[in-house]
């Protein structure tokens, strides 16, 4: 078997598992949907944090925008029509069903537009900062966004919003959101795979390794940085929209979960190995499963265990699983030296 056929087979196998999983374990649909969401989180964070070296704590901002936008669209479009009781601007169900999906699709589009616009707008200012200043600044943006959301009456302020309930049986809803997240994660994966193989990928790696050098070599660093952040924003907004509708209830804590999802996306990427394509996927999978196990078997102490896990991960595996593998077997990662050159002393060749 050649490498390519192997790859195709393995992608097919993972794809098939992903497709069949909800039928194999119907009770776990939501957890598995969230697994794909976690993978998406880790992948999008790694785009900035791992591949570009811009560690962001504020990516939940885009997730939050994604959460709220479709819910607001649903409310504005269909709330009055259905004559729902007007309590605090909540709504429960929408019929006919296609309205739900229309509103949802429209909401997702809006979410993406807003999130990407915000990323581009904020990016010009914030991406000029480097290192810990960038990290702190994004943290500030994430916290401030959550606080503003919890004060803004139009989106329910502190009372939160209720997104419409999926029209149809709950198991269908679980299936719908499972496949939504699955497809999103897969698209995200292949988009990033393609991006990393392009000049864009090289450029953001160069920015990570030495931004001053990249500038000295004339690379349009600002442009690449802004695009990277917009790509993250794009996928996170979609994930947020889907999560908001899956969760049905949206408030500040759901939409801007800085100290849960916000930190987890970083941890998952690091656990798997930041700066690699597969690292975030592996990291997210292991993290999510471990966490679910903690929740089931360590009632009340799960957070303590999680904290210990975090310390262990970053202290003992700062390079992550993929980074560790790469250190062990660099040749497997294509880091080879031509054999005859290994022994020979350095010499200047003749050129071509």
């Amino acid at each position, binding site marked *: 078997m050649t490498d390519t056929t192997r790859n195709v087979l393995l992608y097919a196998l993972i794809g098939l598992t992903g497709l069949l999983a909800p039928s194999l374990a119907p009770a776990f649909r939501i957890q598995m949907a969230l697994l794909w969401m976690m993978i998406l989180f880790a992948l999008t964070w790694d785009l900035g944090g791992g591949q570009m070296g811009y560690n962001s704590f504020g990516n939940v901002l885009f997730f939050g925008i994604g959460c709220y936008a479709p819910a607001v669209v649903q409310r504005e479009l269909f709330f009055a029509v259905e004559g729902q009781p007007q309590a605090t601007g909540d709504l429960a169900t929408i019929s006919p069903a296609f309205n739900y999906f229309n509103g949802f699709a429209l909401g997702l589009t809006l979410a993406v537009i807003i999130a990407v616009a915000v990323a581009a707008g904020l990016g010009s200012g914030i991406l000029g900062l480097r290192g810990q200043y960038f990290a702190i600044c994004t943290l500030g943006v994430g916290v401030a966004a959550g606080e503003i959301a919890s004060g803004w009456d139009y989106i329910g302020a502190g009372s939160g919003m209720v997104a419409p309930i999926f029209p149809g049986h709950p198991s269908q809803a679980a299936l719908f959101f499972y496949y939504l997240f699955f497809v999103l994660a897969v698209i995200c994966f292949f988009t990033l795979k*393609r*991006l990393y*193989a*392009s*000049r*864009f990928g*090289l*450029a953001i*790696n*160069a920015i*990570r*390794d*030495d931004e*001053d*050098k*990249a*500038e*000295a*070599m*004339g*690379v*349009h*660093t600002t*442009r*690449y940085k802004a*695009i990277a952040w917009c790509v993250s924003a794009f996928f996170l907004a979609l994930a947020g929209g889907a999560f908001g509708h899956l969760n049905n209830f949206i408030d500040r804590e759901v939409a801007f979960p800085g100290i849960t999802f916000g930190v987890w996306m970083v941890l998952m990427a690091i656990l798997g190995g930041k*700066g690699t394509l597969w690292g975030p996927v592996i990291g997210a999978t292991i993290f999510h499963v471990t966490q679910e196990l903690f929740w089931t078997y360590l009632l009340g102490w799960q957070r303590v265990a999680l904290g210990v896990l975090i310390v262990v991960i970053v202290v003992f595996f700062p390079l992550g699983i993929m980074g560790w593998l790469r250190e062990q077997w*660099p040749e497997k990662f*294509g*880091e*080879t*030296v*031509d054999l*005859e*050159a*290994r022994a020979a002393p*350095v*010499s*200047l*060749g*003749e*050129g*071509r």
Partner: protein
Amino acid sequence: MTPILEVQGVTKAFGGVIANDNISLTVPKGSIVGLMGPNGSGKTTLFNSIVGYHPVDRGSITFEGREISRLRVPEIARLGLLRTFQQTRIYGMMSCLENMQISVPDTRDGLRTMFSKVPPAVTQQAEGLLEFVGLYAKRHLRAGELSFGQRKLLELAMALMHEPKLLLLDEPTAGINPVLINSLIDRLKRINADLGVTLFVIEHNIRVIMKLAEHVYCLTHGQLLADGPPDEIQTDQRVIDAYLGA
């Protein structure tokens, strides 16, 4: 010969310390010009001013007749004026080949080129240049694993990948195995002659600069002390005094 770079009356101070004081010099197109001077005489500061690393306090810098003293680093680089660093800078986590591939000039970066894969022609060119500096066998190794001298060569190759018009080299032979220095000088001359790249070189090693440069400027205490052909400079008493610290 027409000048490719003209520096006129450039002054740069850091706090109270004047690093460059009213410096004027010219680099003719197609030549190799040397810049020498004892430690702390302001050579690297001048380089930094030229490539836009920091703004100058006074004076003008023109590149191919265009004022560049107000432009920023990447803009100047895209004009075809490139520099290498004294403390070599390469992209450590990327392979040597990738280091080369990203060094293709970013001038026509439309969305198309940004997201397209690296064309085979570029890879070929990169491999050729790696061969030229003797790193072809290590092209798949992470650049961070190279020795200091090898990084220096990689950085040179990266600069060439960019096809610059003027290349500012900050101590290109520092840290290079002495055995290889002659062949490196030869290489630099070929870069100048065959590829048509004008070189402006900071060099400590007098032997190197005498062999390499056609014209040499000497700085001391931030001021231009002397300039002329290498053999003249070599015997200039003021230069000798400056180096001996008299």
